Every structure is written in C-alpha cells, then in structure tokens.
C-alpha cells in the first residue's frame, strides 16, 4: 500500500499526518551568518563562512542532501580558466564572457578567478573530479598526467551557438591552442558531500524550512537585514532567525507563467519549489533589483528529458552525430571537438534543416547516432556526461532497463515533432538583487549568490559565487552587533503565514497559482504595452485583495505551497513593474514593447533597477558595466583572499 487511496480503500480513512503539528509555535535561532537556500550556492556559502570561524545556519525548503537544481548531479564544470590545462588567462576570459550584454561581470570575474579553487576543495572533501580509475583512457580531452577530462565546450570560442566552432583569438593564448575551459566531472557525488562538510563544520542545518521574509532593523523597509522568518513545511512551526548577515542563495522562478502538473516533466529541469522567494523577500525588504523584466521561454520537455536534454543532440550529448529517420547525417553540430562544443546549428544551417524537413529531404524524426561513435567516446558521453548530469541518471538507467543499448540503437530526438511552448509560457529566472564587489545587495547585511544574482545558473558559477558571498558575509558579521527584531514585523509575518490554516474553505494553492500565472500570461508576455501591464498590476492587486484572503491549507505542506504562491504573486508584481520601467524593446531580454518597438536602442543599453521605498516603487538605472575594471576591482576587494582552503 503505497498510494493514498489504498489506505482509504483498506481502512476507510486517510492516513494521519505523519509529523507533529506545531502551528503557532516559535523557535528562535541565533547565528552570525544565515544562508537562505541549501542548493549548490547556499552550501558553498555555508562552508566558506563556517571556515572563517563564525556561526552559520543553513535553511532549505527541501533536504540539503539532494536539493536544488544541482542536487542530483552535474557533468560540466564550466568556465574554469584557472585550471592547470587552460590556455587562456582567467582575467581575459572573464572580460570576454562579460561582452555578453546584461550579464553579471562581477560574478563572471569571481567564477573565472575562483571556480578552480572551489573544484579542488570539492576534491579535498571527497568529490570526484578526475578519471582516477582510468575508465576513460584514450578519450579525447583526457590528460594522462592530471587525469582531468577536458570537454570540447568552449575550446574554440565562448558560448554554445553556431559560432562556437569559430576560432576566437585570445592574447594570452598566442598559439591558438585549445582553450581547455570546461572540465568533465562526476557531479552526482557532490551534493551529499557538501551536506556532510556543512555538518562537520558545525553548520546548523534546517531542512524542510522555507524562509518566508527578511527581518530588518526596526522593521523598516531599506534597513539593515538582521534575520529572517521561516516556516517548517512538515510541522508548521514558525522560525525566527536572528543573524548579523544573510546570504540569499535561492533560485529563479520557473512556474510563474504556467502551472500544469499534468504535463509531468513539462519542465523537469527545475522543481516547483523554485518560486522566486529570494527576490520576493529582498524586494519587500527594500533591496534594488535588476533585470527583472528579462524572461525566458519555458522549455517543453517531452521524451525522457529535462529542458535541455532532448533525445540526442539538444545538449550535453557530446560528440553524438544527428541523423534523420533514413540515417542521413544532418548539418547539426555534434557538440564535439570538430565544432567546439556547439549545441545549435548556425542560422544558415538551421534554415537548411527547416527547408529540408518541409521538402522531405530530411525525414522526421531525427535520431542521435550513438552506434556511429567510437566505443570510448560513446561511454564517455552516455555514462559520464549523461550519467552524471542533473536529472539524467534516472533517464539513462530507464532507457537501459527498457532495453536501449547505445552501441546498437539510435536515440530519438524530439526537435520539430514536440513543437514549441507558446510565448506566454515563460520562465522568470532572469533577475535579482543588484550586487557590488562583495556580492552585497543595496541593503546592509544582505548578500546574494548563485543564479539569484541575475546570472547564469551553472554549477561552477553557483559554487564560486556562493563560496565568495559566504566569506564576505562572515567578514561583515564580525563587524556588527546583534539587533533585536521588531516585534511588530514578526507578528505581522506570523499573521500572514498562518492565515490559510485558519480557514476551512475557499481556494487551494494550485488554483491561486494558476490564477496568478494566467494574469501574467495575459498582461506581461508576448505583447507588452503600458496599458496592458497596468491592467496586469490591477489583476494581481485584485488577486491579492480578493483571492489571497480565500486561500486555505489543510496541512503544513499545503501551507508552505500557499506561502510560495505569495512569493509568486510578489515576483509577478516586481516583473511587471520592471517591464513598465524599461520603455524600450530588447532582444537580449526577450522583452518586446508594442508601444516602444525600437529594439535595443543605445540609450536603453543599461540596467534598469526597481525597488520599494516606503511601499512605493522607485525605478533607477545603472551603466551596463557598472562594475568598472574587473581585474582591478576584484583584486582591490580580495587582498586577503587565501586561495584553496588549507585548514582542517
């Protein structure tokens, strides 16, 4: 009996809630550094802060053991120019990475300078980063001396579009050797190791606790952050964290524009728990946020895959040639050595493929031709790249159990036949709090790491920036004293959190989530105008005033989901306000205003910021490279950086 209705049929009743109920009970925790979110960035922040000798509390909605997008695993440690086999100088690589408009140059510089140090520390803790068992001898990119396995990604150029095949010259690489910028890793071993190290260092871990809001000095918006409140999703207990510094290491929000649990796996790269909590709490506390108008298209996953890993060839099926249904090779890159790891065809090749599909030259469906690969390369791709990457292990295991054999079988690809998701289905992970060279937000005491700092969501970026934010927050915590939270702020938050359990009827979290998503689809997606977006703000206001007071929750789990909805609602409001503030269209931000159709006009090439001041929205701006000279600024802020951890 493993299904809920089995119990009903056997016992005539549902099973009792398995955990003790502690509604309205309070637990108070005193710490120096509070880490919000226990994914890759949060764990590294906790470890580096704890290694500085301060008290650390790590709060996670799931269980730190496997939580976060990087919890199940990771196959690539990307952009690691300080590795011993790299041929481009880290500072030059960071500058080149930052040519990409609307990136976070501060994060890029930190990643390039420090993610190799983080990887070595991962190895010190027991993570596998080299082919120590000689399983892949003879695979291209494997270095016999160090046993490091270099991936073809970024070996010629930056990025994974069609131009990845084009050799880019770097001053620090005068002979144009391969850049050797990405390392293949055994990332499925990493997350449990991070938790173990947190425990060893005495980090207080609070699993199954959602941080609901930040506490500020005197309860004032814009004041120093002095802690946070939380809710245990199993017991319903209310948590009050008192801290001297806090690091927000939450992720974006991939379901603000769409809720559909029936399309299981419609986007299994991210779980429903990622609901923009970090941005919502930073906003309410008065931090300035940027790039909140940036949204992405929600990948529609079909077949066994998450967003990126379609049948074969969409990504991370390194070196797999794509063929059509008749076995004809397509002009699709193999993500291999020949094309510098390109994941997508050039525009010209893509047009050839589309025309070929329409005229019958290329028969659908397409397939990944694993049998055409050499045995060694096939194993490296199937067992290592796919076996170690994020949620792919269960996918490759499933295929094998069902009889798939990569030496004999072509794996179906879903390009063209699965269709694209509508433009109204978006992900909203593109923005976050403005940060400085300490990864501090505009609020004292509040730091950010990982994807939440309007940045790429890759594993090594999360690790390096988490590690950096943790040590900066620890330094700050030594300079300030403890402040007592405002009683009013705590009691208001408590009333907000517990409202849904005080009702027995109304609407549940799923209905509210879908309602918020619909308003976002209507008023802030493909066609944006000032009038439409103002209707959107009114629609969210109506939801807030009429439907949020109808929310009810039957148990602590559904209560937590309900409070996540309130994060989604706030996140939607921030996004609409930011979209109103950018009075221009932008290709890079996937932001198109019917009333301001000019795309990326020079005067709008800047960061637009939004924040709350006394409850009113204030818009501002920052230059596109507000971080200044990256190398000089990094060095000025890190004179005391001691490199790879040498302690016990």
């Amino acid at each position, binding site marked *: 009996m*493993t299904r809920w209705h089995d119990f009903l049929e056997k016992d005539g009743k549902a099973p009792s809630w398995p955990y003790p109920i502690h509604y309205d009970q309070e637990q108070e925790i005193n710490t120096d550094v509070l880490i919000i979110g226990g994914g890759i960035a949060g764990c590294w922040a906790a470890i580096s802060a704890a290694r500085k000798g301060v008290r650390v509390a790590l709060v996670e909605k799931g269980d730190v053991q*496997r939580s976060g997008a990087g*919890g199940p695993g990771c196959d690539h440690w990307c952009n690691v120019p300080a590795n011993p086999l790299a041929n481009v100088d880290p500072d030059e690589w960071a500058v080149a990475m930052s040519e990409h408009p609307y990136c976070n140059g501060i994060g890029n510089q930190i990643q390039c300078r420090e993610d190799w140090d983080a990887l070595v520390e991962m190895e010190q803790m027991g993570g596998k980063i080299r082919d120590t068992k000689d399983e892949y001898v003879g695979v291209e990119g494997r270095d016999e001396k160090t046993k490091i396995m270099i991936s073809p990604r970024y070996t010629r150029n930056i990025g994974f579009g069609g131009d990845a095949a084009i050799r880019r010259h770097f001053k620090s690489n005068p002979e144009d050797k391969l850049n050797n910028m990405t390392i293949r890793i055994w990332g499925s071993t990493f997350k449990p190791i991070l938790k173990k190290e947190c425990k060893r260092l005495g980090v207080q871990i609070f699993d199954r606790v959602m941080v609901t809001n930040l506490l500020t000095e005197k309860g004032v918006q814009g004041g120093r952050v002095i802690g946070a409140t939380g809710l245990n*999703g199993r017991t319903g207990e209310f948590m009050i964290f008192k801290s001297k510094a806090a690091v927000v290491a939450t992720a974006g929000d991939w379901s603000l524009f769409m809720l559909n649990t029936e399309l299981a796996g419609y986007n299994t790269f991210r779980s429903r728990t990622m609901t923009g909590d970090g941005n919502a709490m930073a906003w309410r506390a008065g931090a300035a946020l940027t790039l909140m108008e940036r949204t992405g298209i929600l990948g529609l996953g079909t*077949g066994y895959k998450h967003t990126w890993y379609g049948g074969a060839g969409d990504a991370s099926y390194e070196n797999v040639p794509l063929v059509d249904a008749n076995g004809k090779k397509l002009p699709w890159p193999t993500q291999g050595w020949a094309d510098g790891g390109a994941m997508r065809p050039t525009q010209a090749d893509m047009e050839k493929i589309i025309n070929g599909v329409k005229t019958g030259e290329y028969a659908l469906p397409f397939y990944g031709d694993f049998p055409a690969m050499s045995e060694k390369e096939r194993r490296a791709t199937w067992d290592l790249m796919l076996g170690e990457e994020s949620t792919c*292990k*269960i996918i490759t295991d*499933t295929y094998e159990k069902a009889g*798939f054999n990569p030496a004999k079988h072509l794996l179906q690809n879903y390009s063209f036949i699965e269709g694209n998701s509508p433009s109204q289905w978006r992900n909203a992970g593109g923005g976050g709090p403005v940060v400085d060279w300490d990864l501090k937000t505009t609020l004292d005491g509040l730091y950010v790491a990982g994807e939440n700092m309007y940045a790429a969501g890759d594993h090594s970026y999360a690790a390096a920036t988490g590690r950096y934010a943790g040590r900066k927050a620890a330094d700050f915590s030594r300079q300030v004293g403890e402040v007592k939270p405002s009683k009013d702020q705590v009691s208001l938050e408590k009333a907000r959190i517990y409202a849904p359990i005080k009702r027995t009827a109304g609407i549940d979290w799923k209905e509210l989530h879908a309602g918020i998503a619909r308003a976002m689809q209507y008023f802030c997606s493909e066609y944006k105008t000032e009038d439409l977006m103002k209707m959107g703000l009114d629609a969210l206001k109506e939801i807030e005033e009429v439907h949020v007071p109808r929310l009810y929750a039957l148990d602590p789990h559904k209560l937590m989901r309900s409070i996540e909805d309130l994060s989604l609602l706030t996140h939607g409001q921030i996004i609409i306000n930011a979209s109103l503030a950018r009075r221009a269209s932008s290709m890079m931000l996937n932001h198109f205003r019917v009333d301001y159709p000019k795309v990326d006009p020079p005067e709008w090439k800047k960061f637009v910021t939004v924040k709350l001041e006394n409850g009113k929205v204030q818009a501002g701006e920052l230059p596109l490279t507000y971080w200044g000279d990256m190398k000089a600024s990094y060095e000025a802020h890190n004179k005391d950086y001691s490199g790879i951890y040498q302690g016990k």
Partner: protein
Amino acid sequence: MAQKKVYALPNLTTPNTNVIFHPEVCNGCNHCVEVCQVDVYIPNPEKGKPPVILHPDECWYCGCCVNDCPRPGSISFNWPVQQRGYWKDKATGKVLRDSQT
C-alpha cells in the same frame, strides 16, 4: 467477481504513481522520503513498509529517490505514458519504446 466496497473518490491526480515500490525488497527505511526535495512521499504508518506517495503531482522526476536508495530494487521509476522515450534499432530499423510496466 469479489465485491469490493466502492468509495466516492475524486479523480486521481495525474500522474499518480510516479514510482513503484517493491515491498519484497524495500524495508521502509524512508531514505527516499528524506532525499526528495518536494516531499512527494510520507512515511508509511506501518513501520518497515514502503512510503506512501502523497504528492505525486509535485514530482519533478529528478530520480534521487531511486538513485540514492540504499537497497537497490526497492523502487523503480514509472514514467507517465506521455513522457516515455523512443529509439530505433540501427540494424533492423525497428522503432522501439519503453514498455516497462
């Protein structure tokens, strides 16, 4: 046919059985309950028995419950029909699909 009591139940959520537990192997250690980041499972009220799938509609198919199971063979993934993958035998051209039940 034996008469079974019929209850008035709402439609089940879809999907509703994202994993299959094998009680002959599973000893109810609840490790999967702990590694799941969305709390799909709760412990079985009867100790030593496989967990109860309470929130199958929240599963994000990360696979950690199966991957990290200390007693392999206790749980198998049961992908929804609409998600199942296809492949083709290169030698024969025969199209195949995951038909595991």
